[in-house]
């Protein structure tokens, strides 16, 4: 009930945020000095009458306000316009590519959380001991190293040198086919009962996930460590020790619940960050995701995909904040709203 009200209120708050995002994407779309008509027709043999005809069809001869109105109206209907370079509706192109990005990002998120939380707790418990120093140096390196460069290093060692990893070209080898149902290869290969393909999907995911996660694991580990150090020094943990509770109970049940409060905000933030930030890694690994698609479209002067990508990123980010807030409210009974 409490939570229901929170969700409703926060969903309503999303409306003004999304309107702001739409205004910005629209304006950016109009100030890009690329002419969609030229893109559509090709540069040569432009027949002036035909140009005017296309401008009219696209609504580009309308006043800017009308164009904005039409733009917003179409988006609310799920119509993000046309991708001029592929001549498909933007949404269709996106639907093919977004699962690839989401798969990469979600797996990376899980890896981050599964690695960073125990590492952070370990570093806090072993504070200033050898293990803590190792974790600290490792996470410092992780924060400092750019993801794309780390990705290239991974390719060099694991593909070129050791030959352990599959080629850094996409999500799956060209000999394997997976019938798309959800677009998530991990799920689709399982649905088809094709375990070999399932394993191959993991092999293709391994390096990009490592490249995407490195920095985030490092950041999150440091945050969990400092938050846990504070918690472990608190009076209520002293009480738990005075009660002779087991170390695992103290660290992971009593302590971690408190220690997770600050990292939760960052974890929510991370998901939005990864979707936007995966662009670079998608380029390095030729990952057929939405980020790479948005960038290549931008380079081609095609702004429909970029607008759609930005709107999606913004919506995901706002939703992540919402999820983080809900988790917060679930964990901490003191939060009132």
């Amino acid at each position, binding site marked *: 009930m409490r939570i229901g009200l929170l969700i409703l209120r926060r969903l309503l708050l999303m409306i003004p945020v999304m309107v702001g995002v739409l205004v910005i994407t629209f304006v950016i779309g109009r100030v890009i000095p690329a002419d969609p008509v030229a893109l559509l027709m090709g540069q040569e043999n432009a027949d002036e009458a035909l140009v005017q005809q296309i401008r009219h069809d696209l609504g580009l001869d309308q006043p800017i306000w009308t164009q904005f109105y039409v733009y917003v109206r179409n988006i609310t209907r799920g119509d993000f316009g046309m991708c001029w370079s592929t001549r498909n509706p933007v949404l269709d192109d996106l639907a093919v590519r977004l699962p690839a990005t989401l798969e990469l990002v979600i797996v990376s998120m899980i890896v981050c959380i599964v690695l960073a939380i125990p590492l952070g707790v370990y570093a806090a418990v072993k504070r200033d001991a050898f293990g803590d120093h190792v974790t600290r140096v490792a996470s410092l390196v992780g924060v400092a190293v750019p993801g794309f460069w780390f990705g290239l290093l991974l390719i060099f060692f694991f593909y070129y040198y050791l030959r352990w990893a599959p080629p850094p070209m996409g999500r799956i080898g060209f000999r394997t086919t997976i019938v798309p149902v959800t677009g998530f290869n991990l799920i689709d290969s399982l649905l088809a009962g094709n375990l070999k393909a399932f394993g191959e999907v993991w092999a293709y995911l391994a390096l990009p996930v490592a490249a995407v996660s490195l920095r985030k694991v490092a950041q999150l580990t440091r945050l969990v460590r400092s938050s846990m150090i504070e918690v472990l020094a608190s009076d*209520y943990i*002293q009480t*738990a020790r*005075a*009660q002779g509770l*087991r170390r695992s109970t103290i660290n992971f049940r009593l302590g971690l619940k408190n220690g997770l409060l600050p990292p939760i905000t960052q974890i929510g933030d991370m998901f939005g960050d990864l979707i936007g930030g995966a662009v670079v890694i998608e380029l390095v690994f030729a990952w057929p995701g939405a980020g790479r698609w948005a960038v290549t479209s931008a380079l081609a002067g095609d702004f429909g995909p970029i607008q759609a990508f930005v709107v999606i990123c913004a919506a995901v980010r706002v939703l992540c904040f919402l999820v983080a807030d809900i988790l917060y409210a679930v964990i*901490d*009974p003191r939060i009132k709203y």
Partner: protein
Amino acid sequence: MEKETTRKGAGPLETPQGVVLHIADLRVVFHTYVGTVHALSGIDLDLREGKITGLAGETGCGKSVTAKAVMQLLPSTAEVLSGRILFGGEDLVRKTPSEMDAIRGKRIGMIFQNPRAALNPLFTVEEQLYFLLHRHEHLGRKEARKRSLALLEAVRMGGAKKRLRSYPFELSTGMCQRVMIAMGLACSPKLFIADEPTTGLDVTVQAQVLELFKHLVYEVGSTALLITHDLGVIAETSDYMGVMYGGRMVEFGTTEDLIEHTLHPYTQGLLRSSFTGEDDDELHYIPGVVPDLRRPPSGCVFEARCAVCVEECRVSVPDMIEVENGHRVACFQAGAAGIADGGKAGSTRGER
């Protein structure tokens, strides 16, 4: 957290007759960035079975360190140099952390000051009691709830059933301390340590909590160590009391003896600072400050602030000497300071 302690001293592990906790020559130092702090310089203390013993002294005198040493809850910077803490035929100083875990909470209960902070903010009262009862009594959820309810009723918590589902932030500070007491006594421990249990409570609540504490300790048949800087609290609750100063015990005896026949100039000063006589409306205090325990004085620790100190006090450390039936004091001038002349010893009159 627990540190490997230097193991010195051997001997029989039996505590004297009628004594639950026997501390002998306990020395604890803290290794800090600014030097080694001699927090405890050889403490002897016997807790008599079924009695409440109060420990008094100013901040930094070592009374909390004594309690934490018993519980092996000293921070990692602390080192136990020597001494024995005998409890139930075992030396707690030699216990490993996991052996201590089985003792803490079950055979020794402890409560702290600032009860609201001492309770975990994200768990209900029931959950926090469950962790304890499950750990030591191996109770399931259902049995733990039954026992918790009985415990809350025992600490006279109004609406106990509802309070089980409460989070600490929904309780008053007094209620939080009641929950802490319920936790401390949940496994009927042989020894119950209360570290400044009433600090931070309203005076009226303080009296209730103390009354409850006293009642429950006697009812459970436990033995209690009550640590406080408030002599009034000790006077009301304790059977025995010890006064600590600068990491040493300076006087020990029955509460009555210590208050009626005070021997140590420091105890006299403390008493004069806390109780105002009827014919006397002036404020009393002990001049000077506590010694720097990084460089403890070579003589008596109280020498610098003592009004009756003589040359001997500066040179050698007075031992605890039994003056009369169980009343012990560490002062060369104990006779001279005397009861009659106690008023002038170690205190200064301040004009209002």
